């Protein structure tokens, strides 16, 4: 079996097991008030980290490029209470403009 097949199948099997194990943790572990509170904070942490990593890094390198403009435009759109698709589209259009013209 080739390296590519081993990687394709191995990655897929482990990816599913990782996902499924998260869904299989006993519910009673999650009913404690502290767990509930942490459960509210975790998405804030992860989503913020995802915004940062997807905006300012490429692989393991810190990069400032057209995505900074996209992020700033998205922030302005959110401050102006723009609906979600407008936020995403305005970021994409401004970022593409900077990338293509500068």
């Amino acid at each position: 079996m080739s390296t590519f097949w081993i990687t394709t199948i191995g990655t897929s099997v482990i990816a599913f097991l990782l996902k499924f194990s998260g869904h299989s943790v006993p519910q009673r572990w999650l009913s404690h008030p502290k767990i509930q509170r942490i459960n509210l904070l975790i998405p804030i942490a992860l989503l913020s980290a995802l915004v940062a990593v997807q905006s300012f890094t490429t692989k393991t390198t810190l990069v400032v490029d057209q995505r900074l403009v996209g992020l700033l435009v998205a922030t302005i759109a959110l401050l102006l209470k723009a609906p979600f698709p407008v936020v995403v589209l305005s970021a994409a259009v401004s970022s593409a403009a900077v990338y293509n013209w500068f």
Partner: protein
Amino acid sequence: MSKVTSATIRDSLSVSLTVGAYGAAFGAAAVANGFSIVQTCLLSLLTFSGASQFAVVGVLGAGGSAISAIATASLLGVRNTLYGVIMAPRLQVKGFKRIVAAQLTIDESTGVALGQEVRGPAAVRQGFWYTGIGVFVFWNLFTLAGALGAQAMGDIRAFGLDSAVPAAFLGLVWPRLVANFERGLAIGCAAFAIVMTPILPPGLPIIATAFIAIAVGLRR
């Protein structure tokens, strides 16, 4: 259709389309790095986790071994375990439906679902399923398109797709930043993830912020 449901569908579709379009870039990258079209499509169908898939292509493309490719991809996939822990009590599904839910548990489905919490628990579940299925359909269609048109595929940056996804995540976290405490946590975690990216292996800077949230939640 209620106002709540249409708003949730709108969020789900926006994310599904923009993220799904990334599938074309993955399909093209995979084929360009030596994967067959069948292997490329199987990665999108079975692994179904963008970061892990790109990692696999990147490692093998750079001459890495199967073991290192699988390890890197799995490290990135640990995030989905945590998402599963977060989503399980909100979805309350058993049997075959739980298997499907597990497969659809990714950044986007979890992110959109949690972004619906202001609209109530039903909207959270709808957000998860609509986004999970939507991304799955578009991701796989675009993967095939990208794999087939690998040579003709342009640069996703020219279309601003590299900015659309972080903008979507920003839009999702925004309504949760209700007070200075939440804003401080968000800025702290964003800064931590950026600073740690050159130091920690790929994927860890993101998952590590979950432990910041846990530490903060235990102390508060």
